């Protein structure tokens, strides 16, 4: 009851503002007149994701399903997506969301997302083990991995190992997005593994090692766009994500390059989710099924180097080499319990700030 009353109060107080907005926001109508439906997809805004996803997945989908339109609502980060979804929980305008698995878990628990119907999304059965999520909640739609990017002009010998971060040559020219960003969390996991331990038991050795890195780091700021920092030579070495880095490499004519350190890395999974209470759940699942289909997965991999989650996807070897999907690479990936990590995120963030960044 309380829930109801507080929720009811706010819109009432904001009537004037809503009235103001009514004339300008112009939400896409459901277009009932011509029989087409508009499915609203929320996904990443930055790093070329939107442009490539529209080209590789949405346009072909719309061509195949002339009565379904997909509108892309770009948002900077998964956290911000969750924030937005929360505020419209009672009356969602978004139908499908692509976001990081760790954040999606929270949304699943909060009841923002709803499990998919395996019958409506047949492609689910062909997904890799890594992509499957409990209870048929939104499965993985892309695979990626944490990597190192470097400025090719300043760095003559490309880094090969995470240990290269401690190379004095990079002193003051390193950028790492500290926790709560996933980059820093991931680095903690990787270091724990390299140092012969396991992040689930103790991260003390990793933190100890990171303390020595601290003075060399120029910025710990969460950069939505680390790639520009590297391209412009502001820093020479940075933690970054493979797929976007590959794209940036091509777009910057090689000013930046990306390596997967030999010790391996962690995988990052973007899941595709159905919003609970979606008024277009059936069309939304049609789209999700397409997004998980071998064709769509292959096309997007070719455009942006996210590895497909569908095992049947056929990807060019050249492209495949630049994604995380090759068997050799997959072997080096460290298994991560994202659910567990999400719960420890706050604690790790605090440890980082106290013991690493303050050095």
């Amino acid at each position, binding site marked *: 009851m309380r829930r109801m009353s507080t929720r009811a109060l706010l819109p009432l107080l904001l009537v004037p503002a809503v009235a103001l907005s009514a004339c300008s926001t112009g939400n896409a109508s459901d277009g009932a007149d011509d029989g087409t439906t508009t499915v609203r997809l929320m996904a990443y805004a930055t790093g070329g994701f939107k442009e490539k996803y529209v080209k590789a997945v949405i346009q072909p989908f719309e061509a195949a399903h002339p009565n379904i339109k997909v509108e892309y609502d770009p948002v900077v980060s998964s*956290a911000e997506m969750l924030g937005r979804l929360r505020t419209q929980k009672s009356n969602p305008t978004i139908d499908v969301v692509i976001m990081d698995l760790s954040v999606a878990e929270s949304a699943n628990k*909060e009841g923002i997302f709803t499990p998919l119907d395996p019958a409506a999304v047949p492609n689910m059965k062909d997904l890799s083990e890594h992509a499957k999520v409990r209870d048929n909640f939104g499965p993985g739609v892309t695979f990626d991995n944490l990597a190192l990017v470097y400025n090719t002009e300043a760095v003559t010998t490309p880094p090969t190992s995470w240990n290269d971060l401690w190379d004095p040559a990079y002193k003051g020219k390193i950028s790492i997005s*500290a926790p709560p960003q996933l980059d820093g969390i991931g680095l903690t996991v990787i270091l724990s593994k390299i140092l012969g331990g396991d992040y689930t038991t103790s991260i003390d050795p990793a933190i100890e090692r990171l303390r020595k890195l601290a003075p060399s780091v120029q910025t710990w*700021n969460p950069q939505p766009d680390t790639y520009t920092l590297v391209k412009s030579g502001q820093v020479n070495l940075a933690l970054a994500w493979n797929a976007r880095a590959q794209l940036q490499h091509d777009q910057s004519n090689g000013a930046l390059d990306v390596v997967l350190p030999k010790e391996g890395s962690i995988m990052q999974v973007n899941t595709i989710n159905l919003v609970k209470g979606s008024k277009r759940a059936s069309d939304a699942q049609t789209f999700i099924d397409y997004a998980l289909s071998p064709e769509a997965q292959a096309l997007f991999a070719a455009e942006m180097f996210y590895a497909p989650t569908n095992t049947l996807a056929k990807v060019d070897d050249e492209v495949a080499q630049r994604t995380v999907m090759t068997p050799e690479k997959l072997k080096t990936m460290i298994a991560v319990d994202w659910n567990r990590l999400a719960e420890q995120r706050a604690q790790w963030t605090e440890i980082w700030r106290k013991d690493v960044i303050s050095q």
Partner: protein
Amino acid sequence: MPTSSRSSEGGTRRGAAAALLAPGLLALGVSFLVPLVWLARMSLNRTVGPAELQTAVSLRSYIDVLTDDFVWEVAWHTLWLGALVTVLAVVVSYPIALFLARTRSRLRGLLMALAIAPLLTSSVVRTFGWLILLSDDGIVNSALSGLGIIGEPLTLTNNVTGVVIALVEIMMPYAILAMIAGFGRVSKDLEDAAGSLGAGRLRCFVRITFPLSLPGVLTGALMVFVLTVSAFITPRLMGGGRVFVIATEIYDQATTTLDWPRASALSVLLLLLFGVFLVLYQRLFRMVEGR
């Protein structure tokens, strides 16, 4: 003579006042009061697990915040930064303020505008200026190494040093404005009188000018302190992720960790802190004024 003779006719007066106030109150209500109430309400909700928001009426967030060592550390750091910036900003602003309060130069208007104009320039732009000035290969470092003073560049950005330098500059116009306003009692005549009684310039300054300018200094200090404690842009852009203050913490909790109740509780506590400082300041001000 009744002062209320300004009013217009009839029983419509109260109605007229209400009608005139309506747009302003509505605008402030929507853009200020409702959000604050909503913020206070949100601070009573709970976050469970990683980031799951639960509607509740609970002081959990406050307890969590207040029993968290890290929060205390950040708060302490914020206050320390505020105090340091306040002292420095007041010191560097004092000469300008005193000069502007007393000069009879024809250029006074222009100089006044020059001192205050930066206030109306975005702090993003001014912080950017400092990034250029202070970066490793920036102007300050190249000047210093050019003069042979330093061998290796000083790290002046992406750390607390840069934040302090930039904040001091950003706060200067506020300090200058507040001080000029508070320098009303500092008159040239008093100094001249002291001079005629045989006081040297320095003694004159220490015994007459400075004590009289204290209320202005206090007002300026409070203004700078309050603004520094809530500064966000500069610590974020200049701090290199190393400088944690309450403002950046609120931003992170609100946008990255998505712990809204915690962010709201922090905000409410920051507001309370402000209230305490305002009261303390008024006490102090009265003490100094009443001397």
